[in-house]
């Protein structure tokens, strides 16, 4: 029996009501917003921040972003949810540096998976953050990405951790993944 996946629809401008109601100004519905708490996991602490930029370079300040990653030992299990409605449209994530993960007889380089939804995004966008100083030569996912576009998946070291800006369009358009 084969059925087709339900069609996606945009999360719309009011996605925060559904996914982070406390943050959206609906206190008391839930004890706290899912995925908003501090990340307690084994590994070296690291801070990531970034913005989502549209085709005119404007910051997308109404997006919700979810993170799924491994801890320092390479075991997946860290999930977090953030909004991009900070002052500059920055999202910020205090997490741990993921470890390499076994896949298909080899090793995937440390990475953090992102899923992004917002008004104007018709299907949630999946991408990955990699760290520039790691060895990416055996990574089965990066191997599918044209070499000229791999830099869009690399975090950029900054003063207190890394930046990862997502470009929805333009010459630096981030690579999005169809898994």
């Amino acid at each position, binding site marked *: *029996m*084969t*059925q*087709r*996946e*339900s*069609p*996606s*629809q*945009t*999360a*719309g*401008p*009011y*996605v*925060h*009501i*559904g*996914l982070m109601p406390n943050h*959206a*100004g*609906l206190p*008391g*519905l*839930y*004890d706290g917003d*899912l*995925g908003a708490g501090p990340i307690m996991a084994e590994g070296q602490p690291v801070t990531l921040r970034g913005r989502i930029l*549209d*085709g*005119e370079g*404007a910051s997308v300040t*109404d997006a919700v972003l979810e993170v*799924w*990653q*491994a801890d320092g030992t390479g075991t*997946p*299990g860290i*999930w977090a949810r953030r909004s991009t409605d900070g002052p500059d449209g920055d999202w910020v994530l205090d997490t741990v540096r993921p470890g390499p*993960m*076994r*896949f298909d007889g080899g090793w*995937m380089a440390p*990475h953090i*998976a992102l899923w992004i939804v917002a*008004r*104007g995004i*018709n*299907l949630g*966008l*999946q991408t990955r953050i990699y760290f520039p100083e790691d060895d990416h030569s055996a990574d*089965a996912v990066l191997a*599918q990405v044209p070499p000229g576009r791999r830099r869009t998946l690399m975090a950029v070291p900054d003063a207190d951790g890394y930046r990862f800006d997502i470009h*929805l*369009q333009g010459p630096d358009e981030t*690579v*999005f*993944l*169809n*898994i």
Partner: protein
Amino acid sequence: MTLRPRDMSGHPPAIAPAYRSSRLRGPTQAPIAIPATPTETTGPVFGHGVLGPLDGDLIRNFAAPGQMAIGQRTIVHGRVTDEAGRAVPNTLVEVWQANAGGRYRHAKEGYLAPLDPNFGGCGRVMTDDQGRYRFETVKPGAYPWPNGGNDWRPAHIHFSVFGSGFGQRLITQMYFEGDPLVARCPIAQSIPAGGAERLVAPLDWEETVPMDARAYRFDIILRGPLATPFEATP
């Protein structure tokens, strides 16, 4: 479980020009196909313990004690399965919607219709071991939106579903049987080949509770495994 590559032809294109917001926000390049790795086949697991007693009751979960939201009392229920027809059990379904007048309780929302002091517009449920879910709400109103013309959203409920792996993550919208606005909506009609019909929930007379609430049935299908095993028992 390893995921079958997503069939993009069943989804709206990234840029659907009639939906103005997508013009600058939709990626211009096709997504790059990758194998499903443990990062995509695993995902967060939420226990039924995350739910509060009223999380699936939008009529009362924001209301003052003894009060209820204004609107047509509505039951929404259905089943979450994957492309192989298997139940997706114990997965979190989050919903949000406008009130009966078509107004969201959101700082950026300025539609003329009033807020209902007893309606928040947010709820969540988990599927059971058969993949079934159910919640109670008031039917949302249609609302106008700035898209360059005379655009009205059909009555709809937003759904966010997790599934068992991060690669199954899906956000969609449910529409109501018989709503003439579905055919006029640039967002619903961005789905190719009349696919908006797949998001229209039929009135469910069997589950409609006499003298109480009408029921609508909305089934959701998430991505499924690469190879369809012949066990396929739901």
